[in-house]
């Protein structure tokens, strides 16, 4: 379970940044008093236009960034007070396949398994299981630098899931992938849901959201502007497509700000 409790992330602006943003303010709120909950066995979609604060929120959940105020409780642990315990319970996957080009998939997955302090046998079994499931065995000894984007994304998934995390955080996981590889990610999200994991993902692809999502939240300019169950959303915006509803919600919020 993820409990996001009134989190805020403020960045101080340098002179250069003030000039670029054409503002006199000394700081900017990337995320502003956001609160929501994600339940186990359900898929939570976090939507928002570019620069809305989705990635910042997901980075705070994955302990890469520390909230300026508020807290996030993940599987009972606070990201502010106990980030290391949180890290042992989460799997984090981004759309940009960030891997080590000079290592093989086996080496990368072993590295992350060891950093998660998995014992040798468990690591070996789990790696074998994931490699079979994702079809990595055929290229498990090849250097990552010589692989296609799809192959790399499969290795990224194996790396994120090696320690069998309770909570899985996906930041635009299918961005830039071909249909077949994107589908493997969608299948993975479904698997996570079936195995009662808490899943949160951000995406710009509304068809994916429609297909997978149980709960929905929309962020615009750092503010949480919508948070509801998907079934309620469908009732509320009956006859309107998800894309149209999303645009309406975001535009309304931005009009209010103006």
């Amino acid at each position, binding site marked *: 379970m993820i409990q996001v409790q009134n989190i805020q992330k403020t960045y101080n602006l340098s002179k250069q940044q003030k000039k670029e943003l054409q503002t006199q303010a000394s700081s900017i709120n990337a995320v502003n008093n956001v609160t929501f909950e994600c339940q186990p066995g359900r898929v939570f979609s976090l939507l928002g236009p570019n620069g809305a604060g989705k990635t910042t929120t997901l*980075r705070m959940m*994955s*302990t*890469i*960034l*520390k909230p300026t105020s508020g807290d996030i409780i993940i599987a009972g642990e606070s990201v502010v007070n106990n980030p*290391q*315990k949180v*890290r*042992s319970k*989460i799997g*984090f996957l*981004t759309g*940009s396949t*960030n*891997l*080590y080009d*000079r*290592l093989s998939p086996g*080496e990368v997955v072993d*590295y*992350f398994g*060891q*950093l*998660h*302090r998995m014992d040798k046998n468990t690591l070996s079994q789990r790696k074998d299981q994931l490699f079979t499931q994702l079809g990595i065995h055929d290229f498990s000894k090849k250097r990552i630098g010589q692989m296609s984007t799809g192959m790399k994304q499969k290795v*990224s998934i194996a*790396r*994120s899931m090696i320690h069998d995390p309770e909570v899985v955080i996906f930041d635009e996981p299918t961005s830039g992938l071909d249909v077949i590889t994107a589908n493997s990610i969608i299948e993975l999200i479904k698997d996570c849901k079936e195995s009662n994991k808490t899943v949160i993902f951000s995406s710009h692809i509304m068809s994916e959201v429609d297909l997978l999502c149980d709960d929905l939240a929309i962020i615009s300019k750092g503010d949480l502007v919508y948070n509801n169950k998907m079934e309620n959303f469908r009732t509320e915006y009956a006859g309107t497509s998800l894309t149209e509803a999303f645009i309406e919600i975001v535009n309304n919020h931005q009009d209010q700000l103006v």
Partner: protein
Amino acid sequence: MHTILTVFKKELIDTLRDRRTLISAIIMPTILLPLMLYGFTKMSNSIMKKETEKKLKVAMLDAPQTFIEALDTARYEVISGMDIESGRDAILSDSIDAMVSFLDGYINSINTGSTGKVNMWYKSTNLKVKDRLSTVIDDYEQNILDNRIADMDLTKDAINPIELYQYDIAPKKEQLGKLAGGILPYLFIIFCFTGCMYPGLDLITGEKERGTIETLLTVPASRFKILMGKVLTIAVVGLAAAVMTILGLVAALKLLPDIPAHLLETISNIIQFKYVMMLFVMIIPLSFFFAGMISAMVVRAKSFKEAQSILTPISFVIIMPALIGMMPGIELTWTTAAIPILNIALATKEIVAGTINMGHYCFIVATLILLAIVAVFISYKQFSKEGMVLK
């Protein structure tokens, strides 16, 4: 410790598969440096031999017959019929090597016991020409002098009232240490720095640029331990580069052509366990100092290129004290022992010469350890900042 070693093991494998690191840390110091040294010495010896044995074409103007007869015809070809203008042009166009002109009244001056004047034209860019002709003229002059002494019924001892015998009692090891000991730290300090530089760029900025740092920061390990694993890798590669430089130089010196036996014996005398260990003990904290300093600096950079532009001027800052350490007259004192890099350069000279003061040595090692701790601490402080680690 488990996390540090896990990060270290992975980073070492990753680094050793990087061509740039392999070239700068292993191939350059162990293979290319000795090969360059060997090749340069061999080529330089060969050029010098060729220049010494080459038959010189020398234009003679108003030369006395006795001088021309004194020339070895196998090594000198006398060119006649030139004047000063055409002789100068011929030297400049390399059609002759030199010109010697005996001025008006030369023979008369010699015969009357006064000084005869001789001009010599040559190009200093043509190696050995000046030296060879000067030797010929000196020998000719000595012959005239011997005749004058004989004519005056004097002995050679009469015009040489003092005969000085000089004894250099400095051990060969000390002489070599003071003369050549400066080049050793200069090379291993540079290679240690460049050895740390590429892994530093790759493991800190490279990871940030590729975005792999984000996923690494989501594992249950503290940033301190992750950084320590990286710093350890950077320091080990820098240390390996420095050690490889020393081994490469020793190998090159043993293989160099025309090295006198006594010099080889002196070199073997220097490579004793005690001296090698003393060098090693200094290089370990030096590598950690470089690793910490480089990590702290490149963590600010957003890209590999930006990091390179930060480190390039730093490499000049590192070279300067090492160069000062090569200068004669700069000695190891309590003051110079406190100046980073210069202290290691001077201490190496003293270690090679066998004249190191153990008080100075311990102080230098302690200073280097302190610097390494400070550098690593600063890099940890930088690495802990969100803005530094993320793009």
